[in-house]
Structures are given as structure tokens and as C-alpha cells.
């Protein structure tokens, strides 16, 4: 049976929305389903309104979708805010003993969450676990699977046991008491082992696999979890994560470590990236390989700190005064986030320049199921860095002019070769210069690296038929939603495909020109107010797209939203929908 099922958990910050949501996702991921789950929360620690959506599918899934089949409403507000999003036969699980006077409708299914929690687990606080059990019970899924997961999550001791009992109580209550027409059941699907993780998890994991030995950062949503992950693994993986005093220090520490010869990174969001801009150019002129993660959120300034936007594209492309080469990679999904990160470290080393991984709050914090990464495919290419076993020539020149623009790289202390570099313009030796010819030669040398680098990058992703009437164009984390739009329109008979840019810079103008040239209608869909990708495409290819679908309210794109907006804008969908 084809399953495409949406759970939503709603409540205040502090009520455990996130943990119930995550556990739900885990339950079905373990059962062989594909899961995609996103988090919507406010910039506060308690109160307010949060929700967590979990989509369960037995086909590929990498986006959120409406409508909601089961809403776990941990408070009254969640019912009021989300009842309109319910599917025809959707159900709202809530605690009718606590939340009174809810205008009745066919969707409501009251479960005495607190009472059951108190009875079975000895604490009202486990009401949310009861609700989890009830939701799983409603779809008649395997009850034992929850227990195992709860024991992993909360331990096999007392807390774990209580949670197991609470969930079981909810499960059984639902099985026994639900009288409505809810017909959908979900059965464990397969034994396929998939991992469930966020984009940030994938980046952290990849950084460790790629041999990142040093990270310095300053907390900022949504990048903080990368630094926390690296810190958590630092003892086991012999790496160092420094919580710096500010972002300026963070990026400069990473540059120092990279200069000294290790793979180094930092991670931040827009405001923090602002403070790293000067360091970015320092890496540029000293030709120091570093990896910077920018997790986008709505700006300018602090904007909406816990929400999503794709508003940093033009900024990261042009951040810093003067010209120097950089790479900008915008992973399309969780899987891509892993491989992009591995590639980022390789490119940084090979071309001796800063590489920016441009992710966003949605990708950073959404969970998706993917096949376990094949770590044996992770390769390490440190480029022209002399290995500890090699001895660089004693008349070593750090910034030697070469045809490729890349100079052999020694690290300080490796041998008697002195590694000299300067953020002033410098000669091949690394000493500062005032000479115009030397300057010109060094600028050109640095920029020449872009030729090689460009060939290193993959061509843009193409999803759907090679040729189509309508080509959607996107970048970064919207990939999943856009693919699904293509699928939907295709099923309706539309001639639509997707050109998706993830390895963004240096820009592959030929491939984009070519792809856009083949379609009659081209629509850029991106999460910012000024159509930054459309502007980049025009700058690089001269081509103007037929239309733009832009979202900048801090919420992620969903397939239905995209289609609805395309209709509003009168976009050529090639089919009736």
C-alpha cells in the first residue's frame, strides 16, 4: 500500500514537542519508511508555539507536505492554529480533560494524556509520551517498536521504563477508544536500515570523516549544533573545537590552524558571517584552505532567528573587498550535505582557498532518512600539501607563481623551509611588496585557480525529463520540494523539469545557459525577496527567467505552496491543477 502520511506535534516550547516529533520520526524510519521531519519554533525557551512535522512515506521523500493526518496537540493553541490544516479524515489527539471548550468537530479525539501519564508512569510530565503512543496506536503500528526506541532514547532505567509504560498506555487507549473513521494503518515496511539525521548532523559527520581537526565557532542558530557535535566527538576523534569569544576570532583561529597544516572549519549564520568577512579575504590572500558553513536564516540583522531564508547568496559570493577565488556549495538535501562537506575540504586543500557551504535553517534542522553513507567512498585529497614525510625545498616559496595558480604548500615546522605569508600583497616568498607587477602577477595567480576549480564542480542537478516545456530553477535546500513539484505536475501531464544548482560557484554558465535554452518557460523558485539566483544567472548567462516565485516569511517551501504560488502568478504549468 502506498503510504504518504503526515503527523504534526504542536505545543509550547518546553512541552517536549521536539522530542515527541523526533521519536515519531525514528519509529517509522526504523520501520523501513522514508521520513522527512521539520521543526518550527520561536526564538524563546519556554512558551510560545512550536510544531514539528513528520512525514512518513514508502517512496522517496525530502519535503514537508500538507495536509496533516494526525495532529498531536499538546495545548489548546495547537488546535486553534492547525485544525484548518487537517486532512479530510485527520485526527487531533488532545487531552480533553485539560483543554476544555474546544469547538467540537469530527476530528477531535480526546485522550486523557495527563491522567494516563500519572497512572501509568507516575508523572503528568509524561503526557507527551502518552500522546506519542496514542498516535502510533491510531495507525495501528507495531507497539513494541516504540518501546525499543524509548529505551534507547531515555535509557533502560527508570525513566526509560516509565516512558515505555506511558507510551503503551496511550497506544492502548487509542486502539480501544478511537471510534471514528480513521482507516489508515501503517505496518512496518521493510528491514532496510536507513539513518535519520539533519543536515547539520550530516555536515558534522562528514567533517569528521574528512579529517577536520580544528573548529572554532561562536554559537548561532542554526549552526550551533555543528559546533556541539564536533565538541561532543572531540575526544574520540582527536579534534579540537574552540568556543571562541566572537566570530571574528573563530574564523581567524580556523585560518591559523589551517595555515599550520590541519583541516579547519567554522560555522555560523548571517550575522556571524558578517563578522567573518574580513577573515574570508585573509584566507583568500594568504591562500589558506578553510571551510565555512553559513546556515541561512531570515535577515537582515537578527531577523527571524529560528526560521529559514535563502537570503545570503549574493552576500557570500561577494563578501570582502577585492577579487579572489572562493567556492560556494549549497547542498540540496541531507545526503548532499554529507558529500558536499567532504568535497569542500578537498577543494579547499586542493585550491588553497576558502570554501563556503551555504546551507539554511531548514536543511540544518530538518530530519531525513537516507541510506547510511558509504564512508569507504570518502577520499582525502590534500592537494599540493607536502606530507609530514616529505621535505620541501629549502628555498621554499609559499606563493610561487604556477600555471595552475596553485603553489606547493608546506606547513610551519615541517622542515627548515620557512612558510611565510602576509595579508598585505606579497611576493612569491610571502613578504610584503609595493611592486605593481608582482601585485598583478599574484592577483592573476590566485584567480587562475578558478579554471581548475570550475572543472571540479558537478554540473547542476537535473530532475525530470531532459527536455521540458517548463523548467523550474532552484538552489540549495528546496531541492526535495521542487522534485516533488516536478513529480506532481508530471503525473498531471505537465512537461516540467528542474534545474537545481547546488555546486554554485564558480558558476557553470554553459550548463545553465544550455538547460535554460531548452525550455519555453523558466521559473526561479527561491527563498528571498529579490530573486538572488535569478540575478546571478543573468549576470553569468545574460538570460532572464520567465518568472520568479519568492518566499521570505521565514517558512520553508512545500510542494503544495509552490504549485499554489505558481498558479497565482499565472506560471505555465503545462497541465491543469
Amino acid at each position: 500500500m502506498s503510504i504518504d502520511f503526515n503527523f504534526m506535534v504542536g505545543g509550547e516550547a518546553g512541552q517536549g514537542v521536539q522530542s515527541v516529533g523526533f521519536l515519531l520520526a525514528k519509529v517509522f524510519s526504523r520501520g523501513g519508511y522514508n521520513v522527512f521531519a521539520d521543526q518550527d519554533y520561536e526564538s524563546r525557551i519556554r512558551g510560545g508555539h512550536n510544531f514539528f512535522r513528520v512525514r512518513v512515506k514508502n517512496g522517496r521523500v525530502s519535503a514537508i507536505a500538507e495536509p496533516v493526518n494526525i495532529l498531536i496537540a499538546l495545548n489548546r493553541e495547537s488546535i486553534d492554529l492547525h485544525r484548518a490544516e487537517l486532512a479530510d479524515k485527520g485526527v487531533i489527539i488532545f487531552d480533553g480533560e485539560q483543554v476544555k471548550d474546544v469547538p467540537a468537530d469530527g476530528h477531535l479525539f480526546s485522550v486523557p494524556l495527563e491522567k494516563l501519564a500519572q497512572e501509568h508512569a507516575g508523572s503528568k510530565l509524561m503526557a507527551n509520551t502518552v500522546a506519542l503512543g496514542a498516535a502510533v496506536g491510531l495507525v495501528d503500528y507495531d507497539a513494541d517498536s516504540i518501546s525499543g526506541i524509548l529505551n534507547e532514547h531515555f535509557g533502560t532505567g527508570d525513566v526509560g521504563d516509565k516512558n515505555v509504560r506511558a507510551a503503551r498506555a496511550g497506544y492502548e487507549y487509542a486502539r480501544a477508544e478511537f471510534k471514528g473513521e480513521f482507516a489508515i494503518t501503517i505496518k512496518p515496511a521493510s528491514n532496510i536500515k536507513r539513518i535519520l539525521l539533519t543536515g547539520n548532523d550530516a555536515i558534522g559527520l562528514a567533517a569528521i570523516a574528512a579529517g577536520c581537526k580544528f573548529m572554532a565557532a561562536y554559537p548561532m542558530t542554526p549552526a550551533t549544533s555543528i559546533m556541539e557535535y564536533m565538541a561532543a566527538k572531540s575526544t574520540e576523534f582527536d579534534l579540537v573545537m574552540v568556543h571562541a569569544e566572537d566570530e571574528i576570532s573563530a574564523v581567524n583561529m580556523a585560518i591559523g590552524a589551517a595555515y599550520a597544516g590541519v583541516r579547519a572549519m567554522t560555522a555560523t549564520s548571517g550575522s556571524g558571517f558578517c563578522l567573518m568577512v574580513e577573515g574570508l579575504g585573509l584566507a583568500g590572500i594568504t591562500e589558506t584552505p578553510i571551510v565555512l558553513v553559513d546556515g541561512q536564516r531570515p535577515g537582515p540583522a537578527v531577523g527571524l532567528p529560528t526560521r529559514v531564508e535563502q537570503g545570503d547568496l549574493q552576500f557570500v559570493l561577494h563578501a570582502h573587498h577585492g577579487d579572489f577565488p572562493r567556492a560556494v556549495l549549497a547542498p540540496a538535501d541531507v545526503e548532499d550535505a554529507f558529500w558536499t562537506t567532504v568535497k569542500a575540504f578537498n577543494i579547499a586543500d586542493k585550491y588553497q582557498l576558502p570554501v563556503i557551504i551555504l546551507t539554511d535553517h531548514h536543511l540544518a534542522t530538518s530530519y531525513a532518512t537516507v541510506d547510511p553513507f558509504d564512508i569507504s567512498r570518502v577520499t582525502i585529497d590534500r592537494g599540493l600539501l607536502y606530507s609530514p614525510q616529505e621535505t620541501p625545498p629549502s628555498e621554499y616559496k609559499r606563493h610561487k607563481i604556477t600555471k595552475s595558480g596553485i603553489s606547493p604548500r608546506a606547513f610551519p615546522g615541517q622542515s627548515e623551509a620557512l612558510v611565510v605569508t602576509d595579508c598585505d600583497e606579497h611576493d612569491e616568498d610571502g613578504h610584503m611588496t609595493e611592486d605593481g607587477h608582482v601585485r598583478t602577477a599574484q592577483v592573476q595567480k590566485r584567480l587562475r585557480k578558478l579554471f581548475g576549480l570550475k572543472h571540479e564542480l558537478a554540473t547542476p542537478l537535473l530532475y525530470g525529463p531532459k527536455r521540458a516545456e517548463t523548467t523550474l530553477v532552484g538552489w540549495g535546500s528546496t531541492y526535495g520540494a521542487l522534485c516533488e513539484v516536478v513529480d506532481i505536475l508530471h503525473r498531471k501531464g505537465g512537461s516540467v523539469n528542474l534545474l537545481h544548482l547546488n555546486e554554485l560557484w564558480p558558476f557553470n554558465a554553459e550548463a545553465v545557459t544550455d538547460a535554460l535554452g531548452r525550455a519555453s518557460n523558466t521559473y526561479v523558485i527561491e527563498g528571498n525577496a529579490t530573486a538572488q539566483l535569478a540575478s546571478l544567472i543573468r549576470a553569468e548567462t545574460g538570460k532572464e527567467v520567465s518568472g520568479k516565485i519568492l518566499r521570505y516569511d521565514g517558512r520553508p517551501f512545500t510542494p503544495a505552496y509552490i504549485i499554489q504560488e505558481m498558479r497565482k502568478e499565472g506560471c505555465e504549468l503545462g497541465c491543469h491543477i
Partner: protein
Amino acid sequence: MVAISDYVGIKSAWCPGCGNFGILKALNKALVELELEPHQILLVSGIGQAGKLPHYTRGNIFNSLHGRPVPPAIGAKIANPELAVIAISGDGDAYGEGGNHFLHAMRRNHHITYLVHDNQVYALTKGQASPTSDSGYVTKTTPYGAAMPINPIALAIVSGASFVARGFAGDTGHLAGLIKMGINHKGFALIDILQPCVTFNHQNTYRWYQERVYKLEENGYHADDKMAALEKAQEWGEKIPIGVIYQTKLPTYEEQLPALSKGALVYQKIEPGRAESLLAEFL
């Protein structure tokens, strides 16, 4: 054997008579006496007249942004603790643009030596007041006189620097001694160095300093008492103490890092396969 001749860099662009020459000489002397070879040291400097120093001697050199010698010095030290890492700033670089890094590097007690060429003026940009300019000092950007100067020595003591000294560019022998102690010290070592700028600072001249400086060690001073050190740190004007003002033993940031117990990070092999074990956590 290391010799002074190993420490001859490119031609300097400093003004004749500049106090920086004394500091350069003292540093070279210290390095030679410590038998450190150029490739064993890393000089990280900022931007300013002081920041040019590394080019005028020899070593691994990372000439960094204005105000930012300390963070890359820290990063490099963690990546490779075998390097003797010496950061070099001017007073504007260290205490103006770089003030925040200064504070936090001290409280974390990173194992680096920090030489601050304190000429009480922004020299490279032609004479504006610096954070250490004497109160009332009139420059083109402080027409009503500079504000109260910051007190780098006192700041260092209260921020947790484990070695705090003041040197004088006019006494290279004494200064070389301080630099040696600073490099030998395990932890953050600040050496604030009184450095006459013959071109822009006509108030705090060689003469002015010479008439005021006196050596702590010749006065039976003990550098191990924090409150006494703080009291000493207030002394400025008629008499200016030079020498080690405060020293204590504290664990360094680096020695608390388990990752470094297996040797310098830069020599550790990259083994992607080890990450395999992490996958299980996401199953």
C-alpha cells in the same frame, strides 16, 4: 648552532631611530640564546609598524589582519604545539582593534608569547591617539585630548594572564631576558614594550621613558602576589616599573585538550574509516 646571522630578514621600512629596532634586536637575541631555529618558531603579527617585524627577522610568518594576530596564533598553536608561537602587535592592534581577543586569550591561558610594541600612538596611520596614549594627548582624531588610557598590565593580571611583564625598547639586554622568560613560560605571556616612536610621539620619547623606567628585579620585587602586582600595575608617571610584574602557574588551554595528547594535530593521520562508527548513532 643558532646564530644571530640566522635571523636576518628583509630590509626594514622603519624610520631611522625607531624603537622597533631595539625590540627586533632583543627578540633575535632571545631566540638565539634559546637556541631556537627559525623554522621552529612561528611569528604571527597584525598590521601596523610593529606588525612588520616578522619580515625583518626570520621564521615561519603569518602576517595577519589589523587587530588579529592572537586568534590565528592560537589556532596554529593548537594545530601544532611544537611551534614556539610568538604574536606581535602594536598598541592599537592589541588593545584597540584586537581588545576582545586579548581579553579572552588571557583567560583561556593559551600558550603563546605576546609582544606588544607600545608606542602609545597609531604610527602606521600617522599619529592618531591609541588606547594607551596618555590622557589628554592631543592628536588629529582627539582634538580635546585622548581619554584615560587602558592599563594593559592591570587588564592582563585581572584577566588571568599567567605571565605579565613590561619591557623597554631602549634596554635590549633586559628586554631579551623578558622575552626569553616569556617564551619559556608555559601559558599566556604578555610583554608590553615601551617603544619610542621618533616620528609621531614627541611626548613619550626615549628620554621620557629613560627618566622613568626602573627595574623591578633590582628592587626586591616578587612577581607572585596578585594584589601587589595590581598595585604595581597602577604605577605610571614619575616612575614606570619594567620587568616581570606578575607570574603564576596555571594549566594552559592546550594541555587540557585530550586530542593533543596523541601528538600535534598536524601530524595525526586522517582516517575516514573511523567515522564509520558514528553512523550507528543515527540508525
